[in-house]
């Protein structure tokens, strides 16, 4: 007797899916790829809106947006760098919107114009290979000591948004001395986040500074010989902004996707991917909490101004 009911429910559900919004939403999002795919699939299942994703590093996403200026494609753009998000806002590319559940977000992870929605966040730390260094708790500056000579790597801040924000925040607070000393100590730039993590995992270098934490937690869960800590003089926690493009070909779907990112289901997936969820009411125990991470005082406007040139400077310093 229940069968007809189920069929009716199914028909209704599919009808409502059609009504809610057929069509597509194009989302540009950075790693982790697994999370991006899961979010896209779940959103498709819930709304019937097809998600076209372009996955790349923050640098690649910005480049893609620039090439497509004449024919905009993206509806929603997610970056791993808050300062890059702020500069997109400054150049007038973003649409203001108040998503559902925005009241439950971590204070400060949504900007005052309601254009940047930090639906998740990562922090960078020191990731080290435990086969080479059984324990380590050196502060940033101490890693320039001779014992770490030629054994330090940093992700390319021109590719990794998280690293870029950290460099900007650290330089803004403490100046260039530490990075200059590290570069003088033979620090290398193996590539974006994953390539840098690969270098410390295989032991090509023993220590990775400014490595994003969620990658490290996930490798550690796989059993790789790695460990991570946040040095005592502090790090930068950077909310990863999701933004609606003013030029979005499909504005309604874009807003629906941002609403979805702040939904409880999406936020749980964020936490499962070892990222810090954007809402305060999501519980997790697979990584350090926000309160446990020592932070540098962040002046995001000042950081936005210097972040790109600082990132370029790191690459110059480390050039062999």
């Amino acid at each position, binding site marked *: 007797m229940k069968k007809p009911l189920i069929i009716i429910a199914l028909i209704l559900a599919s009808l409502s899916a059609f009504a809610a919004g057929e069509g597509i939403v194009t989302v540009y999002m950075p790693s982790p790829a697994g999370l991006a795919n899961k979010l896209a699939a779940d959103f498709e299942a819930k709304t019937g809106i097809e998600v076209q994703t372009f996955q790349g590093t923050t640098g690649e996403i910005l480049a893609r947006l620039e090439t497509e200026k004449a024919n905009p494609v993206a509806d929603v753009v997610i970056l791993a760098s808050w300062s890059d998000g702020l500069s997109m806002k400054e150049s007038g590319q973003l649409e203001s919107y108040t998503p559902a559940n925005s009241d439950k977000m971590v204070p400060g992870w949504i900007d005052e114009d309601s254009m940047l929605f930090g639906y998740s966040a990562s922090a960078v730390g020191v990731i080290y290979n435990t086969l080479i260094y059984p324990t380590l708790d050196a502060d940033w500056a101490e890693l320039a000591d001779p014992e770490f000579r030629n054994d330090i790597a940093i992700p390319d801040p021109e590719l990794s948004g998280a690293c870029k924000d950290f460099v900007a925040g650290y330089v803004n607070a403490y100046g260039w001395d530490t990075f200059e000393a590290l570069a003088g100590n033979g620090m290398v730039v193996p590539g974006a986040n*994953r390539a840098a993590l690969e270098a410390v995992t295989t032991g090509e270098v023993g220590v990775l500074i400014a490595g994003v934490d969620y990658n490290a937690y996930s490798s550690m869960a796989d059993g790789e010989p790695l460990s991570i800590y946040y040095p005592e003089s502090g790090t930068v926690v950077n909310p990863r902004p999701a933004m609606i493009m003013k030029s979005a070909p499909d504005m309604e779907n874009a807003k629906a996707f941002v609403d979805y990112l702040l939904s409880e289901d999406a936020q749980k997936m964020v936490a499962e991917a070892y990222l810090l969820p954007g809402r305060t009411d999501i519980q997790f125990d697979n990584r350090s909490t926000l309160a446990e991470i020592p932070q540098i005082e962040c002046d995001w406007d000042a950081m936005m101004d210097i972040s790109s040139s600082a990132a370029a400077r790191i690459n110059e310093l480390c050039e062999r």
Partner: protein
Amino acid sequence: MKGKRIFPAALIIFLALLIVCPLLSIFARAAFPDGHFDLTSAINTLKENENASMIASSLLLGVLVVIVSSIIALPLAYIFSRTEFARYRFFDIIFMIPFMTPPYIASMGWILFMQRRGLMQQLFPSLAFISDWFFSLGGLVLVMSFHVFPFMMTMMKNAMLSVPSSLDEAGSVLGIPFRTRLGRLFMPLLTGNYAIGALLVFVKTISEYGTPSTLGRRIGFSVFTTDIHRYATVAPIELGKSASLASVLIGICLLIWILQNYITAHRTYSLISGKGGSIRIRKLSPAAKGAILIFIAAVVFFSMIIPLFSVIASSLIKLRGYGLRAGNYTIGNYIAVFTEDKQGINALLVSIFLAVSSATITAVLGTVIVTAIRNARKSIGNIIEGISLLPEMLPSIVLVLGIMLFYNGIYRIIPIYGTIWIMVLSYVILFLPYTIQYVTSAYSQISGSLIAAGRICGAGPLYIFMHITLPLIARGIASGWMMTFIIAFRELVTPSLIAPTNTLTVSTYINRQFEQGSVGKGMAMAVICILFSTVSLLLLNTVINRKKT
């Protein structure tokens, strides 16, 4: 008879649109930065310190690779044409392997092998000092030479085979010692061929993107191709700079092509006339034989075993942190390629689609073009042939950049930019020359008397084509299809420059996993890619050979 004139003209216009317009849009982009003619920005680009030094290092790389690949290829060419080893045809197949392995995969293999605490140091910790040396210009030259040497080897082997032993015997009868004969007789006859081979290796080296984009990037060594790519894809995008560099590269390639034509006309000797001369095989002493075997083994070891071992081993390692260690092996990476997300399987499907569609289109188009060339007046035929072979003379990154600029510009008329069809188009342009060459050589074996016989029996042109010509050139078309299929399957330049959102091919999937994902998964896909091309080569080869009998 009107159709006879209109068709070639239409074909020329079509090919010009297809191939020449994209190239012109590069020059346009470089020389007309704001809509009016202005070379200053192009010249300023070239004057920039980093670009000037990049051009110098590109040319240096080309020269060094020519030298090193000559050192590898010349002895082998001699061994396989003039000594007992010429009989072992099996080496012909062995030396196809470096060619079958895409350069980006081979250099990833080398990186994984050589890097600090990498595979080599895990196997032989005492060899650690080699690693520091390897990640330098020297290592890059070595890896590129090991990829390109079979090319020169084959050319020189064929040239040496065409020098009849009678010349050498004449010298020997006159009492000239072996060394003098080698230096005064044998080598001068081959200088023309060697010059052509060296120029081709040089062009191939400065046109190559795969190795510089992996190993070159690792050591901070920029060349033309990587800089053109960087200016066109990484923020801040500077297409003008990219186009200026591409224009210079086009100039260099055309210059070398002219030089090569000059040498072909003036410095090669026709040694085969009338009755073909015989080749006398040199008997070898056991010691010489041993030395040669060691040399061959060393070349095989460096050009094939190291990169393949490294790629396969990396695809089987479970936890990267523990490396080569008992119990740390898994086939999980292969399973993950297919099951973890849709990306892996989609990349394979996209690559197969691109390979099949571009191979089929070029087979049809190439046959039409060659048929038109043979039926048109000589001057018209030369124009058609010249345009359609242009893509082979130029680096693919330049052509793809041109395609990108041109179709971005005419998006309102032909909206294929940003879709998969622009990739199909680009593949067709890049690989058209292969089909043309295969079909042309098949055509040249058909005697005119067959066609005449058909005419006498009253057959029309279409009937003759369908029943006489086509069956005879079918093998040529099939070989062209096969070559295109294999090369298109692993093509890297097109997808890394103009792939639409969300579209990965096998090559970009491997690259992405290697750079930003799981190296194990990337290398698993690399093994799949190599297996796929090798198996399809063998399969198609047997099918084609069976057709013959």
